[in-house]
C-alpha cells in the first residue's frame, strides 16, 4: 500500500501535464471582457518627473483608461510593504523609504512603472503606452553600493541619509579583533558576489477581477506565497480586507525567490480591476522581467580568516556592502543579514566571528531573495577563504576542513552567530565525496590534461545552510513582520480518498508528489488516492508559502500533524466499531487493530463510518474526518554537503569546461530521491551560472547592459556536466519527518567549488584570485596578469 510512500523514487505526477504543454499558468487564463494592461516604464535610472501627459494615450483606439502616480495618490494606495525590519548597530531602525505603486515625482531605476495603460487588447495597450509623454529632468545616478555612501553621491530618498538603509552587525567584535590579532596566520580576500537576474522560465503575470456584486477581488498571479501576497497587498497597499480578497497562484513556472514580493504590477492590476469592475490582465515580457523582477546577490565583501599554527580557525571578520537597489523589496533587508552572516560558521568550529553589513540604495532594480538568498554569498566567501588558506599553508584542502569541522558528536552545536546546528557528520559527507570524485586519480588526470595543453584543477566546497524558516518567535525577535509556520488540512472524503490542502505552493518543487507520498505513508492509504491542493487562499485556510527550502520540513510537517489528528480521531471511531477501548487500538499501515487480536478496520472504513454515522459514537464525537494543523518549527534545519569540482582551462583562450562535478548532500530523511537529486542538479547548474556565466551589469548611467539573454548568459545544457550526486542521511530532530531542505543546496555549494577548481587550475600561472563570473575573458586576463604567465608553456 505504501510502495509509493516516503522514500520511494516516484515519478512526479505533475510532469506529464508540464511536458505535454497542459500546465495552466496565469497567462493561460482568460476572462470574458478582460482588459489588458501595459506599463509605461522609466527609461532613465534617476530623474524628476515634471509631467506625465496621458491625453494622447487616452484617446488612442481601444484605450479604457490610463492611470498614473497622481491617481495612486488620489486613491490613497499604500506603499509596497517590506516584510522584515533590521535594527542598526546603534539600536535605531533601518531607513524605510516608501515605494509607490506608480512613480510619484521621481523615478529611481530603469524599468520603474510610471503609468499603466488599460485597453481592450494587449497590442492596443502597448501602442497607447508609446503615446504617454513623460517629461523628466535627469538626475545624477549611482549604481554601485560602494559608491552610494560616498560624499557627494546622488541621494535617492529623503528618508535614507547617505543612501544607507542600515548599518548592522552580528557577533562579538572585540573577541574577533583580538583573535585575529593573535592568529598565526590571517588569510584575507576581497570578494564580489555579482548581481544576478533570476529568469524564471515563466515570466510574472497577473489577472485581476472584481465582482461588483459581492465586492470580492480576485488576483491570479504567478507567485510563491499566495496568502502572504494577499496579506501584504490587501492590508498595506489596497485596503482590501482578506475576506473579500482571494489570491490564486495556479501552475507557477519557477521563481527562485523572485516570485515572493508583492510587486507593483500586481497591486496596480487589482486597483484597476476594482476601479473598472472589469478583469485586467498583464503578462511580463522577458525584457520587462530583466528590469523589474527582483534581482539577487550584489555584495562587495572584505573577509579575513585567522588560523593558529596548526591550521585551526581562530576567528572570522567580515565586512560587506550590500546593494538593495532603488527600493526596499519585501525581504530585501533580510537577505544580507540574518540569511547571510548567521551562516558564517559554516561547518567549522571558528570560535569568534564578527560581521558588519551596510545596505545601500542605488539606481538599480530592487534586490531580494534569489535561490539560496544570502547563504550562497556566505558560503562563497567562507569556502573561498578556506581553500585560499589551504593553498597558502600548503595543506590539503580536505585535511584543513576536517581539522576544523564540528564533530559528529558535538550536536546540537551552538555557533557564535546565533544558530544552533541540529545534526550532522560533516567528515562523513566529505569522505564520501572524495571517494565518489576519485580524488586519488586526480593527479593522473591533471597530467594527462597537461599533455593536451589544458590546465586541470580541482576545487572543494563543504557548504551548510539554514532552511525551514522559521521558529516564528525567533524570527519575530530578529525583525520578521509575519509568522513563519505552515498550515495543512487533511480531509478524508467519505469513500476513502484524501484531499490535502497546504499553505505551501509549488513553483516547480513537486509538492503534488512529495506531499501525497507523505500522506500515503502516514495514513496508509494508496498514493493514487491522495490529491494535493495548493495556491488558492479560498481553498487553503492560511499559509506562508514556498521559499528558503521550507516546504517539506515545515509544510510537510504540518501535513503530518494533521494526519496524526486524523489517526487520533480514527482510533476513537475504531474503538467504537470494534467494541474495544481506545487505548487498545493500534494504528499501522492504514489499519486500526485491537491490540493482540486480528480484529481490524481499515482507515477507509473508518472514514466511511465518520461520514455515514449510523453506527458511531455521536454523543461524544462529531461526524466527519477532516483535520487542520499548523506547524511552527522549534529550530531551523541545517542541510550540508561536500562538493568537488574538476575543470579544464584552455590557457590560450581562457575557455573553461567543467569536466566532473560531485555533490554529496545530507538533507536528512529523503521523501523522494528523484526529486532530491533533481533539486541538487538544478541547483548546481544555477550555482555554476553564478561562478562562470551570469552577471547583471549596469553602466554608469544606470542602464542594464545585460538586459536580454543575448548578453545575460544563463548556463546551457552543454555548459553543465553530468553531475554525480549522492546522499548521506542524518535526520533532523526538529521536525516529525526528520527532513532538511534540499532546494538550495546545489546553488549554495557549487559556486565556490567551481571557482576553487579554476584557481587550482591556474595556480601554476601565478593566479590566486578571480572575480565571478569567471568568463573566458576574465580567465585569460588572470593568466596574462598572473605572476607566472608562461609557467605551463
Amino acid at each position, binding site marked *: 500500500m505504501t510502495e509509493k510512500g516516503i522514500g520511494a523514487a516516484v515519478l512526479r505526477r505533475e510532469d506529464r501535464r508540464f511536458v505535454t504543454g497542459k500546465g495552466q499558468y496565469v497567462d493561460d487564463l482568460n476572462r470574458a471582457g478582460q482588459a489588458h494592461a501595459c506599463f509605461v516604464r522609466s527609461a532613465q535610472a534617476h530623474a524628476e518627473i515634471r509631467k506625465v501627459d496621458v491625453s494622447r494615450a487616452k484617446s488612442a483606439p481601444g484605450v479604457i483608461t490610463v492611470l498614473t502616480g497622481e491617481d495612486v495618490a488620489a486613491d490613497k494606495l499604500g506603499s509596497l510593504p517590506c516584510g522584515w525590519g533590521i535594527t542598526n548597530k546603534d539600536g535605531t531602525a533601518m531607513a524605510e523609504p516608501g515605494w509607490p505603486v506608480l512613480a510619484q515625482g521621481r523615478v529611481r531605476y530603469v524599468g520603474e512603472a510610471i503609468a499603466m495603460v488599460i485597453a481592450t487588447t494587449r497590442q492596443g495597450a*502597448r501602442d497607447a503606452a508609446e503615446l504617454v509623454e513623460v517629461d523628466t529632468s535627469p538626475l545624477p545616478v549611482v549604481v554601485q553600493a560602494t559608491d552610494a555612501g560616498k560624499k557627494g553621491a546622488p541621494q535617492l530618498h529623503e528618508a535614507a541619509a547617505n543612501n544607507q538603509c542600515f548599518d548592522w552587525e552580528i557577533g562579538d567584535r572585540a573577541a574577533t579583533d583580538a583573535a585575529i590579532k593573535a592568529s598565526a596566520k590571517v588569510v584575507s580576500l576581497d570578494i564580489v558576489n555579482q548581481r544576478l537576474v533570476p529568469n524564471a522560465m515563466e515570466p510574472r503575470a497577473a489577472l485581476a477581477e472584481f465582482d461588483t456584486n459581492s465586492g470580492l477581488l480576485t488576483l491570479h498571479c504567478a507567485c510563491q506565497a499566495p496568502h502572504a501576497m494577499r496579506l501584504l497587498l490587501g492590508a498595506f497597499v489596497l485596503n482590501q480586507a482578506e475576506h473579500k480578497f482571494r489570491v490564486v497562484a495556479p501552475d507557477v513556472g519557477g521563481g527562485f525567490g523572485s516570485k515572493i514580493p508583492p510587486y507593483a504590477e500586481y497591486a496596480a492590476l487589482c486597483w484597476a480591476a476594482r476601479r473598472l469592475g472589469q478583469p485586467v490582465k498583464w503578462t511580463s515580457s522577458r525584457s520587462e522581467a530583466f528590469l523589474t523582477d527582483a534581482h539577487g546577490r550584489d555584495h562587495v565583501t572584505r573577509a579575513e580568516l585567522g588560523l593558529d599554527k596548526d591550521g585551526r580557525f581562530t576567528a572570522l571578520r567580515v565586512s560587506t556592502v550590500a546593494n538593495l537597489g532603488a527600493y526596499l523589496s519585501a525581504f530585501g533587508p533580510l537577505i544580507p543579514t540574518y540569511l547571510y552572516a548567521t551562516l558564517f560558521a559554516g561547518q567549522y568550529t571558528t570560535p569568534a566571528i564578527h560581521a558588519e553589513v551596510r545596505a545601500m540604495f542605488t539606481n538599480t532594480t530592487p534586490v531580494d531573495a534569489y535561490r539560496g538568498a544570502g547563504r550562497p554569498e556566505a558560503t562563497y566567501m567562507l569556502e573561498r577563504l578556506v581553500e585560499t588558506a589551504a593553498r597558502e599553508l600548503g595543506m590539503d584542502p580536505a585535511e584543513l576542513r576536517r581539522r576544523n569541522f564540528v564533530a559528529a558528536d558535538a550536536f546540537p552545536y551552538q555557533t557564535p552567530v546565533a544558530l544552533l546546528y541540529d545534526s550532522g557528520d560533516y567528515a562523513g559527507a566529505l569522505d564520501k565525496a572524495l571517494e565518489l570524485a576519485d580524488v586519488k586519480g586526480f593527479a593522473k588526470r591533471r597530467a594527462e590534461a597537461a599533455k593536451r595543453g589544458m590546465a586541470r584543477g580541482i576545487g572543494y566546497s563543504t557548504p551548510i545552510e539554514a532552511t525551514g524558516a522559521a521558529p516564528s518567535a525567533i524570527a519575530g525577535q530578529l525583525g520578521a513582520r509575519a509568522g513563519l509556520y505552515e498550515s495543512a488540512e487533511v480531509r478524508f472524503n467519505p469513500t476513502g480518498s484524501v484531499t490535502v490542502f497546504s499553505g505551501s505552493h509549488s513553483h516547480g518543487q513537486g509538492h503534488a508528489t512529495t506531499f501525497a507520498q507523505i500522506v500515503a505513508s502516514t495514513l496508509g492509504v494508496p498514493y493514487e488516492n491522495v490529491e494535493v491542493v495548493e495556491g488558492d487562499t479560498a481553498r487553503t485556510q492560511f499559509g506562508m508559502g514556498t521559499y528558503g527550502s521550507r516546504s517539506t520540513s515545515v509544510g510537510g510537517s504540518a501535513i503530518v500533524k494533521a494526519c496524526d489528528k486524523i489517526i487520533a480521531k480514527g482510533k476513537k471511531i475504531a474503538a467504537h466499531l470494534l467494541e474495544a477501548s481506545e487505548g487498545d487500538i493500534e494504528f499501522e499501515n492504514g489499519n486500526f487493530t485491537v491490540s493482540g487480536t486480528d480484529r481490524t478496520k481499515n482507515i477507509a472504513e473508518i472514514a466511511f463510518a465518520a461520514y455515514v454515522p449510523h453506527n458511531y459514537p455521536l454523543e461524544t464525537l462529531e461526524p466527519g474526518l477532516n483535520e487542520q494543523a499548523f506547524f511552527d518549527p522549534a529550530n531551523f534545519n541545517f542541510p550540508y554537503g561536500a562538493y568537488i569540482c574538476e575543470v579544464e582551462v584552455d590557457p590560450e583562450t581562457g575557455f573553461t569546461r567543467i569536466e566532473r562535478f560531485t555533490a554529496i548532500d545530507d538533507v536528512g530523511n529523503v521523501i523522494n530521491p528523484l526529486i532530491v537529486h533533481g533539486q541538487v542538479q538544478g541547483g548546481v547548474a544555477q550555482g555554476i551560472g553564478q561562478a562562470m556565466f551570469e*552577471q547583471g*551589469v549596469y553602466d554608469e548611467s544606470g542602464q542594464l547592459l545585460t538586459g536580454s*539573454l543575448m*548578453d545575460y*548568459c544563463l548556463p546551457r545544457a552543454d555548459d553543465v556536466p553530468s553531475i554525480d550526486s549522492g546522499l548521506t542521511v542524518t535526520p533532523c530532530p526538529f521536525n516529525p519527518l526528520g527532513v532538511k531542505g534540499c532546494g538550495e543546496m546545489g546553488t549554495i555549494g557549487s559556486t565556490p567549488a567551481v571557482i576553487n577548481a579554476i584557481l587550482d587550475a591556474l595556480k601554476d600561472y601565478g593566479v590566486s584570485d578571480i572575480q565571478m563570473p569567471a*568568463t573566458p*575573458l576574465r580567465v*585569460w586576463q588572470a593568466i596574462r596578469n598572473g605572476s607566472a604567465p608562461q609557467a605551463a608553456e
Partner: protein
Amino acid sequence: MYPFNYHQPKSAEEAAHILAANPEAKILAGGQTLLPTMKQRLAGPSDLVDLGAVGDLAGISEKGGTLRIGAMTPHAEVAKSPVVAKAIPALAALAGGIGDPHVRSVGTIGGSVANNDPAADYPAACIALGATIHTTNRDIAADDFFTGLFQTALADDEIITAISFPAAKKAAYTKFRNPASRYAIVGVFVAQAAGGVRVAVTGAGENGVFRVGEMETALDKNFSADAVAGIAVPADGLNSDIHANAEYRAHLITVMAKRAVAAAG
C-alpha cells in the same frame, strides 16, 4: 510588432518591384534577425516582402569547381548537403555551427549575408573563399559587397539570388563563441586557393568582416599554424564589450587563425 503590409511575391523581380515602390519595406527571408527585432519594436517596416514563395531562390549545385547556393537555402540544408561537404567541407561545418537547430532550419544564407551582422559567420566564408554575390541586378565580388557594420553594396530594391563559392584547396573555420549569444566573438576563416591564401575575420571588427594581410602573406609562404602563431593583430578597430575587450579579441584572432590553419591541414 507594429502593423505592416505583407507581400508574398512569386518571383525575385516582383519582389524587387515591391521594394522599389515602398522605401520602408523590408525583405523577409528566414526572419531570424528581422522578426525578433520587430517583436521588440526596434524595427517597424511598412511592408514585409516574404521571399518564401519565390521558387527559384533555394537550392545547391556545383559546376566546374564552383559551388552555388541559392539565397533562400537554410543553414541546415547547407550543413547537411553532400554537395557542399564534397566541394567545401569547411562551409558545411560553418553552416552547422550557426545559431541553434531552430535558427539553422529557418535562417538563410542570403538573409545572413544581406544583414551583414558583424558577428555572423557567412561573411567570413564569403571573403575568405572569394565568393560572388548574385543579385537581381548584377554579380558583386564579396570583397566589394561588405561595406561596413550592417552595411552592404546592395541597393534598396536589390535582392540576393544566390552566392557562388569557388572551391578551395584547403579551408577551415574556427570560432570562439560569445558565451551568452553564441555568436562569434572571433571567427576566422582560412582558405588556400589558386589565387593564394585568404584569412577573413568576423565577430571582431568594428566595421564587420576583414582580412589579415600579414597572416595571408605568411601562410602563402608556409601554410602552417606556426606561420601565424607569432602574428599579433592590433587591437585598434576591434570591438569591446562585456564579453570581450579589443585586446582579447586581437589575441583570439591569432589563436583562432592558428587553429583554423591546423584544422585545414
